[in-house]
C-alpha cells in the first residue's frame, strides 16, 4: 500500500523560542514602521474611499491604446487630474478621475463627458462612480468593521481560553492587519473595499492559525504540569509544525492560483491574501505565542501526566479531554 510522504519529520525539536526576542523586535519595527508609513505617506485610496470615477475601457478594434492621445483628449475636459493606466492588456485602459468639486452631479457629468470625448467606438467595460459622502461612509464602515471584528475575535478567545490568550490574539491580529496596511502604504497599491475584505479575511485566517496552536498549548499545559512554559511552547509548536506547514502551504497554493489565474481585477485582493497567509502564520509562532511567556500564565502545579508511558494500554477515557473546563488555568 502507498506510504504517504512526510513533509515534516515526526519528532522535530526545533527551539522556536530561541529566536523569539530578536523576532519580536522585528515585529515591533514592522508595526511601528507601518504606522509611520500610514500616518506620513498614507494609503493610496481607490475610488471606493476617495470617491471619483473609475472606468475600464477598451480601444476600438482592440488596437493598442495610445495613452498620449487619450490624455490630451481627456485633459481638454478639465475634470481634474486624469490618470490612465493599461490594465492587463495593451488595449485595456483604466481611467481614473478624482472627485469633482461640484459634487455628485459633477461626477456624473464627468462620466458623460468622457464618453462623449472618446466616442461610441470604445467599449466601456466598467464604470464606477462614488460620491464624497458614500466614500467617507465606506471608509468609516470599513474601519468600524475591522475594529469590531478584532474585538469580537478577542472576546471569543478570551471566553474560550483566558484573558492572556485573548490579548495576545488581539495583538497578533493588530500586527497582521497593520503590517498588511503598511505594505499597501509602502507599495502605493490601491486600497479599496476588496482590500479591506482581504484584511478581514486575513484576520480570520490568522486567528484560525493562532487558535490551533493555543489549543495545543492549553492541552500540553494540562499534560505537562511542571514543564517550564518556554519548553512547553516549543513542544506544542513542534507537534503542530507538520499541520502548520501543510495547511498554510495548501491555503497559499489556492491563493496563488487566484493570484496567477484570477485575472487583473482580483489581483490586489489575491496579493493581500498571499501576504496575509505568510504573515498570519509567522505571527502565530512569533507574536501570539511568545508573548504568552510574558503574561504570567497561571498554572496549576501537580503531578505530571506522563506523555508516552503506556499510552497504548491506557483507555482513551483517562486522557484529559479538551472539551472539559480548562483545569490548568485558574480563573481569577
Amino acid at each position, binding site marked *: 500500500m502507498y506510504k504517504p510522504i512526510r513533509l515534516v519529520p515526526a519528532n522535530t525539536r526545533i527551539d522556536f523560542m530561541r529566536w523569539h526576542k530578536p523576532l519580536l523586535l522585528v515585529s515591533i519595527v514592522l508595526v511601528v514602521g507601518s504606522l509611520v508609513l500610514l500616518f506620513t505617506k498614507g494609503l493610496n485610496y481607490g475610488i471606493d474611499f476617495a470617491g471619483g470615477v473609475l472606468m475600464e475601457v477598451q480601444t476600438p478594434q482592440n488596437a493598442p491604446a495610445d495613452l498620449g492621445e487619450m490624455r490630451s483628449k481627456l485633459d481638454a475636459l478639465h475634470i481634474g487630474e486624469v490618470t490612465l493606466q493599461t490594465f492587463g492588456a495593451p488595449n485595456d485602459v483604466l481611467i481614473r478621475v478624482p472627485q469633482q468639486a461640484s459634487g455628485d452631479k459633477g461626477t456624473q457629468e464627468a462620466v458623460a463627458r468622457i464618453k462623449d470625448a472618446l466616442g461610441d467606438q470604445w467599449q466601456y*467595460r466598467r*464604470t464606477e462612480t462614488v460620491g464624497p459622502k458614500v466614500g467617507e461612509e465606506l471608509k468609516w464602515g470599513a474601519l468600524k468593521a475591522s475594529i469590531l471584528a478584532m474585538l*469580537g*475575535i478577542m472576546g471569543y478567545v478570551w471566553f474560550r481560553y483566558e484573558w492572556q490568550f485573548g490579548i495576545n490574539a488581539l495583538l497578533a491580529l493588530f500586527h497582521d492587519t497593520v503590517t498588511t496596511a503598511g505594505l499597501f502604504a509602502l507599495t502605493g497599491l490601491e486600497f479599496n473595499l476588496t482590500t479591506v475584505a482581504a484584511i478581514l479575511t486575513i484576520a480570520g485566517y490568522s486567528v484560525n492559525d493562532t487558535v490551533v496552536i493555543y489549543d495545543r498549548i492549553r492541552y500540553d499545559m494540562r499534560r505537562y504540569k511542571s514543564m517550564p512554559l518556554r519548553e512547553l511552547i516549543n513542544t506544542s509548536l513542534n507537534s*503542530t509544525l507538520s499541520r502548520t506547514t501543510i495547511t498554510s502551504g495548501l491555503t497559499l497554493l489556492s491563493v496563488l492560483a487566484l493570484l496567477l489565474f484570477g485575472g487583473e481585477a482580483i489581483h490586489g485582493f489575491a496579493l493581500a491574501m498571499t501576504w496575509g497567509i505568510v504573515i498570519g502564520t509567522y505571527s502565530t509562532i512569533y507574536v501570539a505565542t511568545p508573548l504568552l511567556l510574558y503574561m504570567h500564565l497561571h498554572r496549576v502545579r501537580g503531578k505530571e501526566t506522563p506523555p508516552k508511558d503506556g499510552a497504548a494500554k491506557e483507555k*482513551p477515557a483517562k486522557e484529559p479531554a479538551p472539551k472539559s473546563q480548562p483545569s490548568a488555568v485558574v480563573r481569577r
Partner: protein
Amino acid sequence: MLQFSKLKIGVILGIILLGCLFSAPNLIPQASLDKLPSWVPKTVINLGLDLQGGSHLLYEVDTDSFVKERLATVLDDIRDKLRHATPPIGYQNPSTAGGVVSLRVIDSSTQNADPKMTEAARPLLQQATNGMDLTIADDGQVTARYSDQALQQLRIQVVAQAIDVIRKRVDETGTKEPTIIREGEDRIVIQLPGVKDPQHIKDIIGRTAKMTFRMVDEAAMVSGQPAPTDEVLDVVDTRSNTPQKLIVQKRVTVAGENLTDAQQSFENGSQPVVAFKFDGIGAKKFGDATVQNVGKRFAIVLDGKVISAPVIKDAILGGSGIISGNFTVQSAADLALLLRAGALPANLTVIEERTVGADLGADSIAAGKLACEIAIVAIVVAMLFLYGLFGVFADIALVLNAVLILGALSLLGATLTFPGIAGMILTLGMAVDANVLILERVREEMRNGRSPVTAMEAGYREAQATIIDANATHCIATVFLFEFGSGPIKGFAITLLIGVVTSFFTSVYVTRLMTSVWLRRTRPKLLPL
C-alpha cells in the same frame, strides 16, 4: 469511531443528496431545465452584477428640500387663506426659517395684534397646518412645526413615493428584472441586470418631471414688469418665436397629476409631439381656463422650464391635447413616459454607480473558474501525496464541499460575486485544514503506540474541539465583513460563511463515515499514514 447509527448515516447521506440535488440545476442548461417536472429544484445561483453585467445605482432622495418646499406651500396656503378671509386678516413677518412656519397675525388697519383677528384666524390656521404642531400666542405670533416623528413619517412617505415612481419609469423602459429597494433612511438602490449603459435610464430616473399648465401673464409681458403672483421662467423651445423668457403666473391652472395618459405622436405627419389626456377634473379646469383666455398663451412648464407656450385659439373642452416643443422622437417618447409615470416628489442624486459590461463579467467568471479548478487540482494532488488513502477521503469531502456550497447558495438564493468566487477558492484551501488537523493528530497517536481504531478515534475527538474553535473565530470575522460590506463584499462573506459550515460537515462527518466503513471492512493492523 466505528459505530455510526443508521439515523446518523441517513442524515449525512441525506444532506449530501440534497446538496447534489440543489446544486445540479447550475450544471444543466436552462433549456433542458425548463423541460423537467416542476418538483425538481430549478433555482440556479444568482450571479452578481459584477459577473453577469449590469448596473448598480445608489440614489439619495433630497428629503430636506422636500420638507422645505412643503413648509413654503403651507405658508403660501396660510397667506392665501388669511387674505381671502372676510374681512381679510392681516399678518407680518412670514417666514419658514429653521424648519418653522411663523408669522404674526395683526389687524391690517392698525398694524397691531388684535385678539378678534387672532380668533378669526385660528380655524384657518388649523386647517392649513394640519399634521403640524401649531401654537398661537396672545400677541398674535403663530408658529407651526413638524414633530420629529411627523418629519420622519414624511421622509418615509417621500422615499416610498419616489420608489413607486421610479419603478413605473424603469418598467416603462422595458428593463428586465430590476431591483428597486430602499436603503437606510433616504436612499434607494436600483439594480439593473444586463444594462450596459445606464445613461438613458439615469436620465429618465433623475428627472423630477413635475409638469404644470399655467397662464402666461400677457399684461406683464407687455409692460415687462412681473406681478408678485408671477414668475419669470426660461423657455426651452427656442424654435418658436417666443422670447427666451416668459412671465408666467405662479398659480397652476392644471397640474400634471390630472394627466391620465401621454403618448408620443406626430404632428403634421413628421414633427414628434406628446399627446396627452386629462382626467375629469383636469379636463374641466383646462376647459374653463381655455374658454376664458382665448387669444392668450398658456405655458406648459416642466421642472421650472417652459417647454411650449401655444396661443389658445379655441376653447379646448375634450380634455386632450398635444405638447409640441423642440422634440426628437426619443425625447418626446421620454417625456410621454415621464408624464405617464408621474412626477417624483423630491430630487434624486446618483451618489454611487457601478456598471459592469457583460463581457467583463464573462471574463471574470472564466478567470474565477480557472483559478478554482487549478486550486482544486493542486489541493487534491497534494492531499493524495501527503495522506494517501485518507487523502482520497479528504479529497472526496473537498469535492462534496464544493457541491454543498453551490447547493446552499442556490437554495438560499444568495448572490455569487467575483470576490465570492475568491471566497470559495479560499474556503477550499482552508477546508482541508480540518482533515490535516485530524490526520496529524492520528499520526501522533499512532506514534504513541495506539491501535488504528483508537488512534482514529482519538484523532477525531481531540481535533474536533480545535476545529470548532478555529471555525468559530473565523466566522466572527466573516460576520462583521457581511455586516459592513456592500454588494460584492457581502457575496464574499456569505460564501465564506457557508463554506465554513459545509466544510465542517464534510471534513469531519463525511470523512469520518468513510474512514469508519473502511476500518470495519479491512480491520487493518497498521494505518497507511
